[in-house]
């Protein structure tokens, strides 16, 4: 499903060169739930961005599905992200000026789905995260856990095959964090959705199928 071979990422400035990722090799099969752990600045988010086609590796091969990264142009990558990937972020990234439903509909806007279908699909996604009664609310009217559930609804509304979650429980207390984790586990088991999750929380990581540890940009486990 996802395969990375000898992936390196180097950030260069005029005076300094920083290796963010060094020779990363791993693969994730369809339906697997992988968690990535490591201290701050070890390259977890960089790795997630590369898998999510938001960033390019300096060298190495990234295969997602049947296609390797260099075969995509930017427009094709945008389409791929829209159809195959769902993103969940630590800080939710909900648009404050849009209602909960409008936020969840966002990925469908870039697919030319009709307004009626968008509404229906958004409400279904919100129902699956237990927020159907909050469709007309705005993000400022929600708790942190509810915001993250809206973000999950937005990630799953287009039925992606892969969900990339960057510290989804990082901004939540343990109760809300567990609620969010339960939803992710349910998506993984019921829908067979492949999930890659960056986390600092050992307890959360233990609930996933596979664990990868990074240290200073290198894969240590």
């Amino acid at each position, binding site marked *: 499903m996802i395969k990375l071979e000898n992936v390196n990422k180097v950030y260069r400035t005029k005076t300094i060169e920083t290796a963010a990722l060094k020779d990363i090799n791993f693969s994730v099969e369809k339906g697997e739930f992988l968690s990535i752990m490591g201290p701050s600045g070890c390259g977890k988010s960089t790795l997630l961005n590369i898998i999510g086609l938001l960033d390019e590796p300096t060298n190495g091969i990234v295969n997602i599905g049947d296609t390797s990264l260099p075969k995509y142009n930017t427009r094709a990558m*945008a389409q791929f992200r829209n159809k195959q990937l769902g*993103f969940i972020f630590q800080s939710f990234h909900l648009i404050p000026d849009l209602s909960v439903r409008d936020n969840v509909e*966002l990925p469908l806007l*870039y697919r030319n789905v009709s307004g009626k279908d968008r509404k229906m699909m958004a409400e279904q996604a919100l129902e699956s995260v237990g927020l159907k009664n909050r469709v007309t609310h705005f993000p400022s009217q929600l708790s942190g856990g509810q915001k993250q559930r809206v973000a999950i609804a937005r990630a799953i509304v287009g039925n992606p095959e892969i969900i990339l979650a960057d510290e989804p429980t990082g901004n939540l207390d343990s109760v809300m964090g567990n609620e969010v984790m339960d939803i992710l586990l349910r998506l993984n088991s019921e829908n067979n959705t492949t999930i890659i999750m960056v986390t600092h929380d050992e307890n959360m990581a233990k609930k996933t199928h596979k664990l990868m540890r990074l240290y200073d940009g290198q894969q240590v486990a």
Partner: protein
Amino acid sequence: MIKHIFTLIWNKKGANSLLLIEILLAFIVLFAVLSFVFYNTDRLDDPLGFETENRKYIRFGELDNLNDSTRTFALEELKRQLLDLELVEEVGYGHQAGPFSGSSWCSGNNDLGYQIQACYVVVDEDFIPANGMNIIEGRAFSEEDLNANYQLMIGNQTFMKESFGEKNMIDSIIPYDGQDTKIIGIMDEFKYNGEFEESSGRILLLRDTAYNGFAKFTNAYLKMDPSADVAYEEQISKIVQSTLKTSSFSIQDAPLLRKRANMQTWISIVALLSVCLFLCINVALGLFGVLSYSISRRKAEIGLRRAIGAHSGAIVQQFTMEVLALAGMALLFGIIMAVQIPIFDVVDVPDNVFYRGIIYSTIVVVLVVVLCALYPSIQASRIHPATALHED
């Protein structure tokens, strides 16, 4: 996407309302100025109706130093002596109103069913050739007309059309200013205050020895040979001084008067267009600033949109359309307000002036908005999604 954009605008209506008002005000000011410019420049196409090239005007006023009989004699003598000069081709007289005199004498009546309203100039029989005026129907005044039984009139096209429609009125007798007046000819237009003057009803009345005696004239109109230079004015001046027994007169160059008369309107047009340009620059800078600020505040949103499937073109499209939609609403309000003027005939100006004002103001506002929206939008589309997502 359109609905999505209107949702975003509506949900930020507080912040957007100021931008909307700014665009609306810019449209209204542009509409007013452009309508003024069109109204004036349209009149440039209408003929002036008289020549100014190689013409000089002598303004001598009412000659209070002379009594009626000596004044008449003096003016006849002046004309004779001026025509004796080698480079003076024609000399005609007129009373206070006339080319670039700055005064108008107007009168009207609705006797016998004629709705007549016009400004008139009392002239002598040589006024028309001296000013190179064109008679398009009927005939000009002649010396024989001085003993006519009626007051004689030559009207311009606008006067004839406004007063009589398409009816042929040559040799008709009409009441005008309390006298039976015979129309003997139709002249071209007669915009004696300059090119920017609106074509309106103008008539020439031939001097009448009994009523508008020769002695009433205050201006002489000279057609000069092209070779007459400024120094030649000195000879004319000496003749005027000796015949009219006064030094209180001026000799004016007609092309210069024409230029000055037009200059006032040109200055107004340029001043107003400068104000408009300043306004457009202000609106542009305002829009540019607001958009740039808005984009810097929405970096995370841009990153998110890129992550969930928006390519860079979609980002440009979205930000540009947001501003265009806002401008569209402002323009809609503005156009609804502006069209009331021609629909309800608020002012006596041709409707097409306002419609053109609306069209061109709309084009200018849309261009300013698009140009100001494009650059920040393109900048927004270049924001790296991974970087943007980590800015909060």
